[in-house]
């Protein structure tokens, strides 16, 4: 089977995010970039599904500037087979990304699309669902699994997504409010993954070397025939309200008194 997996280039969550003085965006100079952590979980799952269902192929796709080659290479170093970069400089809203992915799916015809549930830059959590609707296929958001991340299944790197015997369906445990819901989706489908699905592997040095030789195809929105004018524009970016400087308390008794009498929270 063929699995398409997304890898978005995002600001490293360990980097300090500062808003530009003109409130147009965040300061990008001096910020480290990496693959969206939720996408890394999607890549890991794609590799596990592939390796338990040979022959299969994992194609890593990114949409962004030429620099996003680095994130595709990191997916290839984890073990993905080849890459696609839809090259575009500047802001794309999630709807444009979904419509670009729709065209990539039409071209590649994967059996399964795996994506992070959200990218940790704009935190939209909509692209996978939009894509599923544009493709007219089923979806399972917030994919997780019943087994814990300390379980023998996880240690053995078993996939959390369960492919049906006929390989035409997939069972997915979803992390929803109040518990885990299990759905069966017909393939092709779009699955967005949550934190507890797996622990992504680190790329080994030999695999990093091998990844350098794997092919990355470059496409453009124009070549895919997609108008990327945004439906949702970012008109202003501000720093969150600063927290007022707090106080140090000398002991537990004072702390409880403050919490009870001033903050009125206990």
């Amino acid at each position, binding site marked *: 089977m063929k699995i398409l997996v997304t890898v978005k280039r995002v600001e490293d969550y360990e980097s300090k995010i500062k808003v530009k003085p003109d409130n147009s965006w965040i300061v990008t100079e001096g910020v480290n970039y990496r693959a969206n952590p939720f996408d890394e979980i999607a890549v890991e799952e794609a590799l596990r599904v592939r390796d338990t269902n040979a022959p299969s192929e994992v194609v890593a796709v990114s949409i962004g500037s030429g620099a996003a080659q680095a994130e595709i290479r990191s997916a290839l170093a984890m073990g993905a087979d080849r890459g696609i970069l839809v090259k575009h400089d500047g802001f794309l809203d999630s709807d444009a990304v979904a419509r670009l992915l729709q065209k990539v799916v039409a071209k590649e015809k994967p059996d399964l699309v795996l994506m992070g549930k959200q990218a940790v830059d704009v935190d939209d959590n909509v692209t996978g669902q939009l894509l599923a609707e544009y493709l007219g296929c089923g979806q399972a958001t917030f994919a997780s699994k019943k087994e814990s991340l300390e379980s023998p299944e996880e240690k053995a790197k078993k996939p959390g997504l369960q492919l049906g015997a006929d390989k035409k369906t997939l069972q997915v445990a979803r992390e929803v409010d109040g518990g885990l819901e299990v759905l069966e989706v017909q393939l092709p489908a779009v699955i967005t993954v949550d934190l507890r699905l797996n622990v992504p592997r680190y790329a080994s040095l030999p695999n990093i070397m091998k990844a350098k030789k794997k092919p990355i195809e470059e496409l453009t929105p124009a070549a895919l025939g997609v108008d990327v004018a945004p439906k*949702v524009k970012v008109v202003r970016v501000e720093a969150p309200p600063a927290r007022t400087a707090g106080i140090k308390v000398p002991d537990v008794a004072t702390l409880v008194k403050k919490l009870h009498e001033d903050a009125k929270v206990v």
Partner: protein
Amino acid sequence: MATILLIAEQAHGHLKKATLSALTAAQQVAQKGGGQIQAVVIGAGAAQSAQELAAYVPTVHAVEGSGFEHALAETHSAAAVEAAKKIGATDVVLAATAYGKDIAPRIAAKLGAGVASDILAVVSANQFKRAMWAGNAIATVEVTTPVKVVSVRATEFPAAQKSGSPGAVQQLGVTAPAPKTRFIEFNEVKSARPELTEASVVVSGGRGTKGDFKPIEELADVLNAAVGASRAVVDAGWQPNDLQVGQTGKVVAPKLYIAAGISGAIQHLAGMKGSKTIVAINKDAEAPIFQVADYGLVADLFKALPELTEEVKKLK
């Protein structure tokens, strides 16, 4: 003139609380753009939940029956779109719960609408504030399409009040499309403690616990709090991943957040600095967590937490 469709969330005939917060946001959209609100309730028990909602909204449509028993994104988004078309909705508003997040984008795609997700505030009829970079920046976004879909972070809006005169409930007949998804089962998580993202008090432990969460749990129990953990704790395998508070974990905004033995990495701060009152307990007086804490106590958590637990017990 705007016509706003509120999509309610319910289970087994009972309205979910988040719906009333989404209604408040819908009322703000109505106020800013000039317009009126109708609602739709979908799923098994919808007629009963619609009665409950009619105390707040003048017209409530109920979609029930075959194909809508389970909250599948394909069928529920289709029903929502039928309702939106029937009333000529210019805005679709719903809570950004797991259900809302699942269906809002599909509704938007069907309506050719832009979707503003997980909004914190209504700025104008088509501009909304939302958190990006895990709350490290607040963006104002503008939806440029004629029809808009807005999902609402429920904790940012108070619950709406009942209106003076009860509204009307109308059955809306919708034929469910054949979904490509099948419900198998729901495994409810039963925990004596409240859910991390919904708790009004959260007690979190970090590396300073050295893996011993007993004092954290004992304090959590007297405060009816959820237990959280820093990434270091989860990475060390001391606590399960779903307790992780932070940018890649859960983003929480409780009334009271107590961080014990947590240094305060950016990653962690991003997940909790929206909390109303923050208490930090750490041996290291220089720990960055103190810069965001309302009340800081430089102390060993193994001494301070049991004391704190006893003091809180005395208050109750």
